[in-house]
């Protein structure tokens, strides 16, 4: 199945804005992140939060076809 990837802030600068990726049915967000880390070992120590279809999810969340998965650092908005 296909999922869309999005990255923000420091992660966006390392990974680009995003793209599409084919994953096995039932892949978890954590497994997808680990596959990205396997390709880019410098990501291993990066603190990351996950959102699917614009809502926070746990790392154990299972993905569905067409999901948009966002990876981003802990937030730092405000003043």
């Amino acid at each position, binding site marked *: 199945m296909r999922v869309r990837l999005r990255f923000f802030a420091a992660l966006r600068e390392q990974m680009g804005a995003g793209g599409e990726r084919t994953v096995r049915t039932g892949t978890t967000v954590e497994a997808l992140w680990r596959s990205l880390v396997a390709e880019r070992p410098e990501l291993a120590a990066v603190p990351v939060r996950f*959102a699917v279809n614009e809502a926070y999810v746990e790392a154990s969340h299972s993905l569905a076809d067409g999901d948009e998965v966002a990876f981003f650092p802990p937030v*730092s908005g405000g003043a």
Partner: protein
Amino acid sequence: MFRITRSPIRVTTLVRAVGDPAAGAVVTFVGTTRNENAGRRVVRLEYEAFTRMAEREMRALATAATRRWPLRKVAMAHRIGLVPVGQASVGIAVSAGHRAEAFAACHWLIDRLKEIVPIWKREHFHGGRVWIGPQQGGPRPTVRRRASAR
């Protein structure tokens, strides 16, 4: 009104958005960009948002606040892009029947916004710029300087 915007934030717009004949109080919070952080002189700040999710999360926070306190209306706006020092980066307005709940909800909303609304801040200072918050794996953000720095 829940908005991520590249335009300056106007308090009057937020206050108007929470106007309600049953309100006896309107409390506003405006966060402005400060000229120093951690001993470093900041020349401007830059904000990036996951815009649609950020607007959803702001709306969800307002709903949660309205369950917790008897509020009339809530409005929230956060600026993105480059924001010069001294300008508003975030604004919140809360109307309620009485001031106690309006103050409490406004305080809670800005604290929660900073914890969960997907917006990131980058400080620009003399000789470099750095994302704020734990982003680079270490206990402190890594400062990446331009080749010309110092």
